[in-house]
């Protein structure tokens, strides 16, 4: 039998040198595909609720954070609790997708995906859950949706871009048009995943060794090591993003804050938050270094929903997605509004 010390170091070395771990193991079937996007259906063995869930993840990371593995999967938690789940996976875009704008993501993918999920589930209403920019897109889509959106949950999704927790000077200069990165974005067309990763690191933690200290502190626990390696794999799995989408987000959201001013248009329709009447739950995280609570909270005052609430989650940016369980407040909120 090896000593605990040896176990710890062996566990540490084994974990950091391991191959890519298996992720996304909850049973699912593809119900619709378009370009690189796939609409996945996760059936529930004990369906309890009529209103299915439609999950939208961010554009810069892969959505398998929502299904890291058995016992660490938010999707698995939802299906076990009796929800039918649909996940819109945008896939990994290629150079040919460099002209995909925010309008395209909302009208050609989210809207169509919701229509397909409604058709497949035979449900008369649907709940949207959006994470990070996926939450911002979910809110924008709900404001122009003809589809019956019963509930809208946005998790760590920025709405008010006048508040900037990081690089405040840079954002000010961008808003005053003292700096402009359009030229470099146009030249690249697609921003490669390595640059997306560096950009995100720069914005959050340019120096990041604490995950390894964290691993070392529990390296003798195989299960925690597996969870660590799955999460670390996700944290390194950035995907390319189209310059067109970034440019539209910079101009419409960051520079002109159109979601707050009510001037945003998607396609030929005004996307005003006051058009939203769905039940709304907005979630912010107490230690989120990327999206502050002040960036999320204004949505509560701007929507027309009668049933609306704001919840602060203990943890960081990825807490809700990575913890692999539906927290009590979320489960109860959904359960009360899904029949």
């Amino acid at each position, binding site marked *: 039998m090896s000593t*605990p*010390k040896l176990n*710890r170091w062996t566990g540490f070395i084994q974990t950091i040198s391991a191959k890519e771990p298996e992720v996304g193991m909850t049973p699912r079937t593809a119900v619709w595909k*378009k*370009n690189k996007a796939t609409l996945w259906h996760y059936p529930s063995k004990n369906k309890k609720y009529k209103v299915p869930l439609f999950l939208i993840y961010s554009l810069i990371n892969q959505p398998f954070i929502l299904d890291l593995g058995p016992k660490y999967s938010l999707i698995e938690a939802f299906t076990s609790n009796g929800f039918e789940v649909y996940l819109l996976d945008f896939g990994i875009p*290629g*150079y*040919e997708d*460099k002209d995909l704008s925010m309008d395209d993501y909302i009208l*050609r993918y989210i809207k*169509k995906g919701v*229509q397909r999920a409604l*058709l497949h589930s035979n449900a008369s209403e649907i709940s949207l859950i959006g994470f990070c920019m996926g939450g911002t897109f979910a809110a924008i889509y709900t404001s122009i949706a003809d589809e019956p959106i019963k509930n809208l949950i946005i998790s760590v999704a920025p709405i008010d871009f006048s508040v900037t927790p*990081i*690089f*405040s*000077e*840079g954002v000010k*200069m961008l808003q005053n048009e*003292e*700096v*402009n*990165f359009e*030229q*470099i974005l*146009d*030249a*690249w067309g697609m921003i490669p995943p390595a640059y997306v990763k560096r950009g995100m690191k*720069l914005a*959050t*933690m*340019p*120096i*990041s*060794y*604490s995950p390894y*200290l*964290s691993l*070392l*502190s529990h390296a003798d626990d195989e299960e925690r090591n597996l969870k660590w390696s799955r999460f670390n794999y996700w944290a390194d799995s950035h995907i390319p993003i189209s310059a067109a989408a970034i440019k539209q987000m910079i101009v419409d959201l960051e520079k002109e804050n159109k979601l707050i001013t009510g001037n945003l248009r998607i396609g030929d329709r005004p996307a005003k938050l006051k058009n939203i009447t769905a039940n709304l739950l907005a979630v912010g995280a107490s230690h989120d270094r990327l999206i502050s609570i002040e960036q999320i909270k204004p949505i509560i005052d701007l929507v027309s929903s009668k049933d609306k609430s704001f919840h602060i989650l203990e943890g960081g940016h990825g807490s809700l997605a990575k913890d692999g369980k539906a927290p009590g407040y979320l489960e109860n909120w959904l359960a009360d509004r899904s029949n």
Partner: protein
Amino acid sequence: MTTNHTQEILNAVKKFGMKVELGLNNSIHDALNQPSILQGLNNQSRLVAASISKLQQTVETLSIPFNFPTKNDVANTTKLFIQAEEKLDLLEEQVTQLNRSFEEFKDTIVNSPSFSSNRMAGE
């Protein structure tokens, strides 16, 4: 006892390490969040963008006499596939709608009183 002691040391190292990491990251953010640095980055990005664009134009020009496809050619071909896929998608939606309408129409006819009485008369 030793295991507990090791764990305590590691937890302390982790806590201290995270504090140092936070301090370093805040310093980097503060150092970079200066108008002069951001203006420099912006100027640099313009130069890089101009070079990339020139290089891309040269490759596009060279692709004609040397007869090789560029990334733009491949992207344009793929876009045609995506357009075709969207048309098929639309057709699929219309067929589904037609199917649904047909089923509803069938149900209406079968459940109508005139249909039931005609059927009984026929029997």
